[in-house]
């Protein structure tokens, strides 16, 4: 199965012998640990408005997903069809390349304030549900 334009050619023997558990880590060059520490809901966003050249298909798609709005690691993983851990390695590389940044929340919210904001948001949502 040929990859999208620009992707390295897939070695067929490799693809058939290596099942889905190996393939994601071929994308990461065999690495299983990301350089940058992130969690399932860590948000990422594209660093620049323009396209980033020379990326593999998974990386390019990841940057696109983070262009409109900050996107969490879990959602990127789901949309790329990659396991979370492999996704983190891909995203970490993109941070190192300057293509993505981790979008952290601003300072200020402590635990109780966060819960109050959550309650208020849910109540508002409830009032809008028919």
């Amino acid at each position: 199965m040929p990859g999208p334009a620009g992707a390295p050619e897939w070695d067929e023997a490799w693809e058939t012998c290596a099942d889905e558990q190996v393939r994601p880590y071929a994308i990461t060059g065999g690495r299983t640990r990301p350089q940058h520490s992130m969690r399932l809901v860590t948000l990422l966003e594209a660093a620049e408005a323009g396209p980033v050249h020379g990326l593999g298909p998974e990386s390019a798609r990841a940057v696109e997903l983070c262009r409109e709005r900050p996107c969490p690691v879990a959602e990127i993983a789901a949309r790329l069809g990659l396991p979370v851990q492999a996704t983190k390695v891909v995203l970490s590389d993109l941070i190192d390349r300057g293509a993505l940044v981790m979008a952290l929340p601003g300072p200020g919210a402590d635990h109780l304030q966060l819960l109050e904001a959550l309650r208020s948001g849910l109540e508002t949502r409830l009032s809008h549900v028919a």
Partner: protein
Amino acid sequence: MSPDRPVTTETGQRNSAPFPVKTIVSGGFGVGKTTMIGAVSEIDPLTTEEQLTVVSAGIDSLAGVEDKTTTTVAMDFGRLTLSDDLILYLFGTPGQDRYWFTWDDLTYGAVGAVVLIDTRRLPDSFGPVGYFEQRGIPFVVAINEFADAPHHYTTAEVRDALDIPGHVPVVRCDARDTRSSITVLLALVDHALTHPTPPEQPHQPIAQGAST
């Protein structure tokens, strides 16, 4: 922040994003976790897969040597944008209770959990209830009212059967219904507010020195 400088912990970050709040929806297999996530989420529930190394239980002498298998577990999740500053993410726990260590990453920093219950299969709920109790994660028990359930147990009966502590709310819900599911989440938030258990873990464990 210049991209050509060496990467430090400060580079590659931006500090004006919404706060991602994580909530867990747990319960036995087929109890309606994904249904509830879908009822609340503004997107169709997504599935994230993670491959985990599972060491066979009870064969400690081989742990770390050879007796490992890789298993793929799936986690469903959804998203609800509550304001410019706040996004709620709902994560469903994998249906199999032997992958507890998956749950630890999944539940890290969660504000709380909903344990969904099917009264026809109460024993499926022991694991999740015990897990959140032990971890000190605020949780509510929500009885998903299946129309074909032979008998509607009272909340007191369910509390008794599962040995749920008195301060933990037990509510009824219809996981298919948005209002009902949001009401369950409100019960969870109220419970977390009135029984504060300061999280040992930050909500967002990355570079959160400023908020601790």
